[in-house]
């Protein structure tokens, strides 16, 4: 399955926007584990996910074509 990853703020400094072909990943929790292995600095950062432009608080199932945003703590204003 193919997932589009977009990243922001300090996370964008080490993880570029990209299309990932991932097999065996069915949920956002599994995607987080995968990304934290691929991009070790991510493991040390607090971050939130948005799935298809909606912030998610809990683990959600993924489907091919989904866009997942990886967002560090907000600092607007």
């Amino acid at each position, binding site marked *: 399955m193919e997932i589009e990853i977009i990243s922001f703020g300090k996370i964008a400094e080490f993880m570029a926007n990209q299309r990932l072909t991932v097999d065996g990943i069915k949920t956002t929790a599994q995607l987080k584990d995968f990304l934290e292995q691929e991009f070790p600095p991510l493991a040390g950062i607090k971050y939130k996910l*948005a799935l298809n432009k909606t912030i998610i608080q809990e683990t959600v199932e993924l489907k091919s074509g989904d866009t997942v945003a990886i967002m560090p703590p*907000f600092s*607007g204003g």
Partner: protein
Amino acid sequence: MSDRKVKDIFINGKIDPMFIGESIAKHSDKKNIGGHSLFLGQVRNDEIDGKMVAAIDYTTYKELALTQMDQIREDIFKKYPLSCMHIYHSLGTVKVGEICLFVFTSSIRRKPAIEACSEIVERIKAELPIWGKEIFEDETHQWKENS
């Protein structure tokens, strides 16, 4: 969700004080307004490990930020009897001393305007996907985190 158009809040670069003045002036023909409340966020020259902040470079996840802002707008209009609400946030580079956030609420009386304005500022800081990169005078940077 209604299908009304989601408003943009983003301005490239600083928010010009002239624009703020003109925004106030536009309300002179709304004769039922008794009080305006304004919040202006300004970029501060924080000192971090002996280095001075010279500017903040703002980025956002615009589509998500505007949807989140639309929800805040709707909640606030339900909670307070406001005549108007205007919100602008900078993107890109804003230098120390320049304005990066402008929240402007108006009501028949002062209290709803003041309370709504304050609540909007808090929610913007907590809920909008906006990131500020603090650029130091020596051109190094660090990422700001809201307290």
